[in-house]
């Protein structure tokens, strides 16, 4: 266990080394928070409620998305794919910890940094400028934190899974882009899944993507509470298990056919 703790710490420190990059990201997240918030507010000029969201909930959703974007990291993660292509994966295979488990520890460390420094500042600004909907009970707050951790892990499980394509395709740029597109829409990062027409929402909820963003956000706002929230957390855990298992199986298959030249 100790080794995973150390790996997570390194994951944290790796990103903590670039504070200016963090502030640049926070700035951009805030600009988008204001713009997207304006667009959603314009919607509420006609209606009091859309898909269970009132205006305050919609603003909270907008700012939470901006606060979670860096931590969830669904765009442009190519670390593992690059290691497989370059052959560096051979070194990972020689290590005493499974690359998937080590990667998860490192990613959770990274996410903690991003949550603290790219998540908290925009959320604070959003809460100061607008009337956001805060979790109603301490229990809801705790459930949100658990849900965010699960969301990061589910996102990692998914990123690990699509990176496995590198064993067969070498260049996974296309797979990455396609994955990011589908994940962006169905995770609720662009617009809440609750705004979707019913059939599209049904498609979304048949995928692991809402577990990466929509679930923690809905718990925060209170759209999901009580047993529904518990069920949503269980669903996230189930998707996490399925994705990690799928990743393991594909990794084993890929590693068997892997040929790395050089020495």
């Amino acid at each position, binding site marked *: 266990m100790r080794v995973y703790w150390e790996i997570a710490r390194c994951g944290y420190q790796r990103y903590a080394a*670039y*504070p*200016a*990059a963090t*502030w*640049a*990201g926070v*700035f*951009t997240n805030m*600009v*988008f928070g*204001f*713009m*997207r918030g*304006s*667009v959603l*507010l*314009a*919607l509420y*000029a*006609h*209606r009091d409620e*859309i*898909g269970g969201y009132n205006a305050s909930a919609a603003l909270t959703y907008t700012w939470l998305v901006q606060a979670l974007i860096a931590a969830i990291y669904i765009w442009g993660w190519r670390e593992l794919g690059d290691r497989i292509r370059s052959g560096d994966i051979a070194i990972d295979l020689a290590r005493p910890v499974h690359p998937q488990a080590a990667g998860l520890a490192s990613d959770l460390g990274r996410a903690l940094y991003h949550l603290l420094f790219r998540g908290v500042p925009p959320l604070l600004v959003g809460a100061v400028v607008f009337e956001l909907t805060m979790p109603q009970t301490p229990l809801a707050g705790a459930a949100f934190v658990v849900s965010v951790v699960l969301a990061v892990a589910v996102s990692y499980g998914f990123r690990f899974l699509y990176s496995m394509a590198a064993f067969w395709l070498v260049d996974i740029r*296309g797979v990455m*882009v*396609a994955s990011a*597109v589908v994940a*962006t*829409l169905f995770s609720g990062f*662009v*617009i809440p899944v609750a*705004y*979707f*027409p019913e059939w599209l929402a049904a498609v979304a909820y048949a995928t692991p993507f809402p577990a990466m963003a929509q679930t923690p956000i809905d718990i925060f706002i209170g759209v999901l509470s009580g047993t529904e929230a518990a069920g949503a957390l269980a669903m996230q855990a189930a998707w996490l298990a399925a994705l990690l298992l799928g990743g393991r199986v594909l990794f084993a298959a890929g590693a068997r056919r892997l040929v790395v030249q050089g020495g």
Partner: protein
Amino acid sequence: MAEVVSLYARLVRARVRSQLQYRTSFALDLVAMAGITFLDFVAVLVIFRNVPTLDGWSIGEVAFLYATSAMAFALTDMAIGHLDGLSQLVREGSFDLLLIRPRSTLFQVMTMDFQLKRLGKALQGLAVLVYALTLLDLAWTPGKIAMLVTMILAGAVIFGAVWIFVICIVFWSVEGRETANAFTYGGNYLAQFPITIYDAWLRRFLAYVVPMAFVSYMPALFILGKEDPLGLPGWLRFASPAVAVLTVLGAGAMWRHAMRHYRSAGG
């Protein structure tokens, strides 16, 4: 000047030729690009599934704003989208190489790449434009047609100038690169909706100071024949080309200022 233009054309032709070597791969990239950007528009469609108008703008009118802005941005992205990688050159010190060649650094940076596949994004914009026009049933005049072409070209120039202006931040802070995204991709997002929906301070800054209002909103008021709820002077609807020239001058001045500030990382 003519010599610079012909050199630019030759460099771009060379890049395009090399990208067209793998036809299937190129075609797939083109389709993928169109697909990704289409998702943005899905968001607009979902919005209008829930409300009939957005701040007095119908779906056809917002689609028109979206399409013209998307096409302008796609052209810019195709020509200079690789400027996002400028921080890499500065960090590694390989920017030094550009300083000793007998052309301006800006010219060299702009011609380092040219991604024809991003035309896919413009095709997506074109498809949305056709959709918008079928909904709108506008009375076309030669003036309006000329304005449509002009606004897309002027918009592309404005996007490009803003991109160059803001990316200069990497000469001061390599890590600050992401700040530029708020103005480039953020600007594109802003221009896709009527600017009246934004808070006054945000509108004043991003629409007038960073003149995104002139990419789509102002010329669109003319083409769609809409009243301006902000009551701005009517001639502003025709000001996009002039604004484009001003932003180019601003970007050029900023770049020269940044060049004097550049200190090599010792590549």
